[in-house]
């Protein structure tokens, strides 16, 4: 099985605060990997290191075959990233956003044209293609920004709370897109606060106070903790946290 993310005792300190504390795990190609934890557990810091945006204090990690210490620019070219807060340019139209990101990632004009047609059709946004992104409902924006994040066919895409505030029906449409991308071999690394979504992952980690406290398939976690639902695993682990969201 091909490994697309490999970390070994990866650590990030801010002064005397250990945000991420010696985390070690592997993520396989085409896997949907859920990264859970309470607010402040260290998820975003860990993700920023893996995206080449933050230099680790110690440990090792490779993403898409590149080293996070020495090859952060190569990593950025080979991954996609989407967060709830920033994803698309609100003042550009749907098409302009696709063109912009396609251009940034070095797609040819022809590829951009094909992608524009493919994406708007996939989302049923043909009528809205020339509208400003600002005017779209949140769920549509999130779906579009996911497809834009994988416009360059990255090996792996990082999704930071992609479905926050999105209604149950739209969340499922979003996950249909995730399944489809994973089916085509793109590895998905996703954080979420909706624990039903943890069930849609192949494997799930739960971070507590900067450490990985659990890593297994959803059914494996349920068995190990002797509970019916992932929520209960999360409660058991997150309640032990000493950090209170800061």
């Amino acid at each position: 099985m091909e490994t697309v993310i490999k970390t070994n005792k990866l650590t990030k300190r801010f002064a005397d605060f250990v945000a991420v504390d010696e985390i070690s795990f592997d993520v396989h190609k085409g896997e949907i990997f859920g990264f859970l934890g309470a607010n402040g557990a260290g998820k975003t810091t860990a993700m920023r290191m893996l995206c080449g945006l933050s230099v680790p204090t110690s440990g090792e990690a490779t993403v898409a075959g590149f080293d996070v210490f020495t090859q952060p620019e190569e990593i950025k070219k080979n991954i996609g990233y989407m967060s709830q807060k920033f994803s698309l340019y609100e003042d550009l139209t749907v098409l302009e956003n696709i063109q912009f990101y396609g251009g940034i990632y070095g797609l040819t004009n022809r590829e951009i044209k094909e992608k524009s047609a493919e994406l708007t059709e996939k989302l049923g946004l043909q009528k809205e293609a020339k509208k400003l992104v600002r005017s779209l409902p949140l769920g549509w924006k999130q779906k579009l920004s996911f497809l834009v994040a994988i416009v360059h066919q990255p090996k792996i895409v990082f999704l930071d709370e992609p479905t926050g505030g999105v209604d149950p029906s739209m969340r499922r449409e979003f996950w249909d897109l995730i399944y489809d991308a994973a089916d085509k071999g793109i590895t998905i690394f996703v954080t979420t606060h909706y624990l039903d979504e943890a069930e849609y992952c192949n494997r799930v980690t739960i971070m507590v106070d900067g450490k990985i406290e659990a890593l297994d398939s959803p059914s494996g976690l349920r068995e190990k903790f002797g509970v019916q639902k992932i929520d209960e695993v999360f409660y058991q682990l997150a309640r032990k946290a000493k950090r209170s969201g800061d």
Partner: protein
Amino acid sequence: MSAITLNNITKTYNKGSILAVDDVSFSVEKGEVFGLIGPDGAGKSTIFRMLTTLLVADKGTATVGGYDVVKDYKTIRTIVGYMPGRFSLYQDLTVEENLNFFATVFSTTIEENYDLIKDIYVQLEPFKDRRAGKLSGGMKQKLALCCALIHKPEVLFLDEPTTGVDVVSRKEFWEMLKRLKEQGITILVSTSYMDEATLCDRIGLILNGKVLSIATPENTIQAYPEKLYAVKSKSMYKLLNDLRSFQGTINCYTFGEYLHLSISCSEEDVKKYLNEKGYNDFVFKPTTPTVEDCFIRLLKTENGNGNKDK
């Protein structure tokens, strides 16, 4: 007396071209926790803004605490607490300064109503000298709730207070709401977490500016018209696609560990189909709907009636 009433409230934007709230009427009783559930763009925030007197309706009337939202807007502003969907405290002020500011604006002091916020504020106290902008998501939300409560409001408006908040903090947040309710405070809250909807006394499902149903969570669930099944197998994505293309399927979607399925054929037909498709390890069993299933069904039926979301 009802704490909140809306009578045929309509609100449009862009010179009437966007219908945000469409002839909405409902009331919330004193001491009730009422949940507004609906997709983004359904009109929830517009309703919050009209009731907190920040927007004026095109048509219809509304009251809060017995006061008219247009005529008596000044009185209403003193008796309501409002937590908007976006964090709207002063980022450059510290935790304590923010709280002091809101207390002063409402001519009160932190000490006077400390009892009401005590449970929440003790968790913030270690960070009281930190600027609000530097707090984590969960902490910001706690501070916003304190600021909305510091003048001891009669009615509390919470617009998606727990979005982006982890499940443990959400649970704590709802325990706080329960205590506020016990003190007689009326709460109107919107959320995208369906487990929270279940904790409300009554919920209103809202779509395209219209309130489609109002009932207790139990009655909402009981009104679910079809039989619902839970299905699973080893490869869930394949199962989902196969069941969606099965002609006896009304609706099929992921639901945690299982898929939820409603059908227009017999149970035997489904089993036969799955056997034909080569599944030999599947689980297929009846299941009880949840508020989430009701919501999904409603969206599908309504949007299926040519009422496509904008």
